[in-house]
Structures are given as C-alpha cells and as structure tokens.
C-alpha cells in the first residue's frame, strides 16, 4: 500500500515578466510530498523558495507545469476555487503570526471557519476552543494578541491553521521572530502534530531548524539543489529538557 501524495509538482516553472526582463524564479521543479511527511524547504533568498511557497500555498499559479494537491489540479483553478482550496486544504503559519489585532484568540481561530463553504458548521466556537486547547492555549481563548507572547501568538496561528482540518500546514519561517526556547516549543508542537499525521512543510533558512524535520529540500537558482532524508530527526522536546530551567 502506497501513501497518497499530498503534493505532486511536475516541471513547475515560474517566470515573472517585469516588462524589460524576464525573471525565471522557478526553472522546472519536480517534487512529491506524501501524507504525513515533515519537510523543510531551505535556501538563501532569491533561490525561488518564496515563489515555490506561494505556488504550494495556492496563492499563485505556476507559469508551466502541473500541481496536484490531494489529486486536485490546482494549476487549472480560478481565483475563487483557489480561495476555497486554501480554506479547506491548507493551513498557513507565518513568520509574523498575522493575527487580527483587537480580536480574541478564539475569534482569530474562527476566521477560517467563517469562510468555510464546504460545510455548515454549528459548533464553530467549540471547534476553535478545541484547536486552541490542542496547542496548549485552552486557558487563553479570550486573550487578545497584544496580551500574548510571541510564542503564544504563533500557537494561536497554528490553531487557526489547524481548525479546518487541512491536508497540509505551510509554515513560512515560523520561528523567525522567536527566541530559541520559544522556537523549540513551536517546533515541538509541529513535531507533535506531525506524529498525529499532519503533513507539515516548513520554509526556513536556518539549518538548525531544518534538523527537526524528516526531509530537507535545498533550493538554488529556481531548482532543487539537493534533497536529504533524516532517519533520526532531532527531538525538540528533548532539546527543551536539556535547556537550563527558565528563570522565573
């Protein structure tokens, strides 16, 4: 029995036409990511990392090539269909959290449910609370972002990414704005979610962070430069225990 591919990219190219010059951001990317994987996409800026992320996130169309997400040919969809795909199949986690200000954690997590067209949800609040409890914020559901630490805000964002039960979570430098302890906590959370079967793709430029994933894809000049699988990824929980106890 083969695990179904969540993502299947075939000969993806992306050309930005700026009028005078054409920028080849992606020059033929082939990639398959299976359900339950935890993948790091690495690369310096300008390597096509962000472009790839935008395409994987169904925010942008590839110039050429085919992109199957859960078997759906995303490259053929229109703008509204892409929005629906983002809502149902993808959970976004951003470097700067991107929570709605002056809005409680619960209401933030509600947002994807409000835009959900697939199903009529009567227990939206319960679902949001469940998602927040799962990321360890069951006690803070009525806190506003400015009352939460960076790590807690990122947890709210992860709960928001999870609430519609997506096929994959796309995290763009999720630890970029966090200190090392909080980064470890967030990575531990991703590892935990991944163990429960959630597919996670994380874009990062920190080799350290990538060590916590199972598969590292390095980009260069719009192509995949090399790929490596980690048979034993580092365990974030273990690293956390090794850190000296936090001073109160």
């Amino acid at each position, binding site marked *: 029995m083969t695990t179904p591919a969540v993502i299947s990219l075939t000969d993806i190219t992306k050309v930005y036409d700026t009028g005078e010059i054409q920028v080849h951001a992606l020059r033929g990317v082939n990639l398959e990511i299976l359900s339950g994987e935890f993948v790091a996409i690495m690369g310096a800026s300008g390597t096509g990392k962000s472009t790839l992320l935008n395409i994987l996130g169904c*925010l942008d169309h590839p110039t050429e090539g085919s992109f199957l997400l859960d078997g759906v040919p995303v490259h053929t969809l229109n703008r509204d269909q892409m929005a629906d795909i983002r809502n149902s199949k993808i959970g*976004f986690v*951003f470097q700067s959290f991107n929570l709605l200000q002056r809005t409680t954690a619960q209401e933030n997590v509600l947002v994807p449910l409000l*835009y959900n067209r697939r199903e*009529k949800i009567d227990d939206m609040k319960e679902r949001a609370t469940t998602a927040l409890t799962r990321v360890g914020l069951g006690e803070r559901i009525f806190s506003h972002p400015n009352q939460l630490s960076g790590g807690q805000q990122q947890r709210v964002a992860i709960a928001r990414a999870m609430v519609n039960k997506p096929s994959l979570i796309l995290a763009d430098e999720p630890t970029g704005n966090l200190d090392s302890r909080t980064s470890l906590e967030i990575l531990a959370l991703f590892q935990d979610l991944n163990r429960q079967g959630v597919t996670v793709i994380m874009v990062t430029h920190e080799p350290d962070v990538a060590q916590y994933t199972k598969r590292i894809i390095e980009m260069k000049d719009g192509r995949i430069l090399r790929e490596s699988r980690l048979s034993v990824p580092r365990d974030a929980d273990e690293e956390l225990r090794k850190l000296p106890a936090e001073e109160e």
Partner: protein
Amino acid sequence: MRSANLFRIAYQSIIKHKMRTLLTMLGIIIGVGAVIVMVAIGQGAQASIQGQINSLGTNLVLVFPGVFRQAGVSMGGGSFTRLSFDDVEKLKRESTKLTGISPVVRTGAQVIGGISNWSTSVYGVSTDYLSIREWPLSSGEFFTEGDVRSQTKVCILGQTLVKNLFPDNDPVGQQVRIRNVPFKVIGVLSEKGQNSMGMDQDDIVLAPSSTVFYRLSGSRFISQILTSAASTAEIPAAQEEIRTILRESHKINEGEDDDFTVRNQTELASTAEETTRVMTILLASIASISLLVGGIGIMNIMLVSVTERTREIGVRMALGARSRDILVQFLVEAVVISIVGGLIGIVLGVGATLVVGAVTSWTTVIVPSTLFVSVGFSAMVGIFFGLYPAKKASDLNPIEALRYE
C-alpha cells in the same frame, strides 16, 4: 458563505475600530441631521402659511365679480362689478350646501374717534361673517339681523384700530365717526395677525352690509360674497351650486362665460404653497450636499482603511476568503456605518429641530417620510461610496497584500 458569517465579520471590524467608525459616521450624522432640520423648517413654514390661509376661515368659498368681456376683449378681473344683494338673497334662498353666506361691501374710510383718527377698510357684512371666517370677538357683541335690516349705525373694531384710537380705554360703547357718519362701537374683534400676503387683517372695521352699502359706499354692487361649505369635501359641490345659482341670477345663457369667479382657499393657497415648496426644496438640497460630503467622507476613510488593513485582507485571503467575501465585508461595513450614522442623525436632527423650534418660535414640522427617506438615502450613500474602496480591497493580490508592511 452564509450571510450571518458575513455580518459577523463586518460587525467585528466595526466595533473593533470605534473611533474610526465614529469619525466615519460623523459626516452621515451631520448630513442626515441637517436634512431633517432643514426639511422640518421648510415644512413648518409651509404649515404656518397653510394655517394663515386657513385663518381666512375653513372651507371658505369666495365669489368675486368676474371677468367681463366686451366684444371679445377681456377687461380683467373686477373690471365690471356684477354682484348684488339680489345674488346674496338668491343664494340664501336656494343653496343647500352653504352653511354661511355674507356679502362684503368694502370701502376705504377715515375713522375718527378716541384719541386719534385712522384710515382703514370698512367691511359691510352679514351676521354670518364671523362664523365663516372663524373669527371670535374679544369683547362686546356682534350686530343682529335686525341691525342689518334697519341699517343701524353700529360697528365692530379690529385690534389695530383699538390700538390706535382707544389705546387706554375700552372702545365698546364709544362713538366713532366714519366718513363723518357717527357709529356706535358695539364689539371688538380678536387679534388675527397678518395674512399670507403680509397684510394686517386687524386693520378693519365691520358694520352691517346695508349700513355700509347705503350710508357709506354708494356703490350699486358688492365687492365679493363670502360663503362657507359644510366641509372640505363639499367645497367642489358648493362651488358648482354657487355657479348654477348665480348664472341663473345673472341670466347667463348656455355656452356663455361666467361673469363672476368662484374660488376656494386652496386656490388662494397654492401660490403661497408653491413659494414655500421651493424654499423647502432649496433648504433640502443644501442639506443634501452635506450628506454627499458625508458620503465622500465615508469613501475617504474606507480607502485609508483598505490601505491600513492590506495585511489583514491578505491574511483573510490566505485563510480562504474569496474576493467577493472581501468586497461584501467592506460594503457591509460601509452600509452599516451609514445606516447607523443615519439613525443617529435622525435622533440628533429631530432633537435639533425641537431646539430650533423652541428657540426661534418658528413652526417646524417633522414629516415621518423624511426620516425613512434619509435612512434609505444614507444606505445608498454607503453602497455608492463604499463600493470603490471595497472593490479596491477585493482586487488585492493576496501575495502582495501579505507582504505589505
């Protein structure tokens, strides 16, 4: 997407930015408030003019001597006086729809009495006159049928004459001379004020029609006949009846024009009403401009808000909002802001109207339909001026919006 969710999104956005919402509303509040105050003042002016016209007497029907044509040449209204006491008598005998009939024999005269003298109009009328004009006496009594029959030299003074001739003592029982004919003052009229043309209605002396006709005016005809119909609804029928009776009395053949004019107060009022209507429209359009400016204010702040919330829009799109969802969110925000602003404007407008009415003693009339129209109009302002910013928001590219700092 369910509309309940939509309203939820817009509602959250509105209450989370109270200051911005309030500032946006301010234009609409002032606009709607101004429209309501202006229309109320205009309508009030109209109502007070209407009231003055009604003060002529309710259900009043006037008969004027009419246009006389000689060989096809119109000599103009009143060019040939052909109303007589016979006409009045015939109306009294034959009419069924008239509740009061009074001839008016009018003559200008110098009145001497008390401490001074005064040039005024003397009206020779019947005993019905006061009831037709709904004009009570303030003191004394009116003359009787007997006085009319016997051409008694009694008169009733208007307030202007009382003020000028008898400022300090009661004129009832005193004697005045009208064109050197001595008259006994038996009553005083209550104050009526100016009429719609600005004429002083209190500058008047009333006397029995026969007395004025035979002892003062010397004219063969009377200047007008005042009658009153039983009710407003009866006015057209009463006018028709008067025409029939007078045509018969004047022996006018079938196909010939009337030699008299029958008018009711509505016709008299129409000119005055037209004037105030123009004024109301003028005031309302000035106020509407402020509503328009309020709408532009909404657009202004919504545009700023779209720029300010670019990141939020990007996040919403990433989380699955369709362009349409964003469009509707901003549109709903604009419409809710303008409707709520409109409602507040109504409250303030009505309050301001009451204040204006109390301070200036102008008549103000709040027409309920104005309130509905202003709310509807402010909703339209919201849609119209919210559409462009909303469209702008919904057209954002999610990637660029997410990257926006």
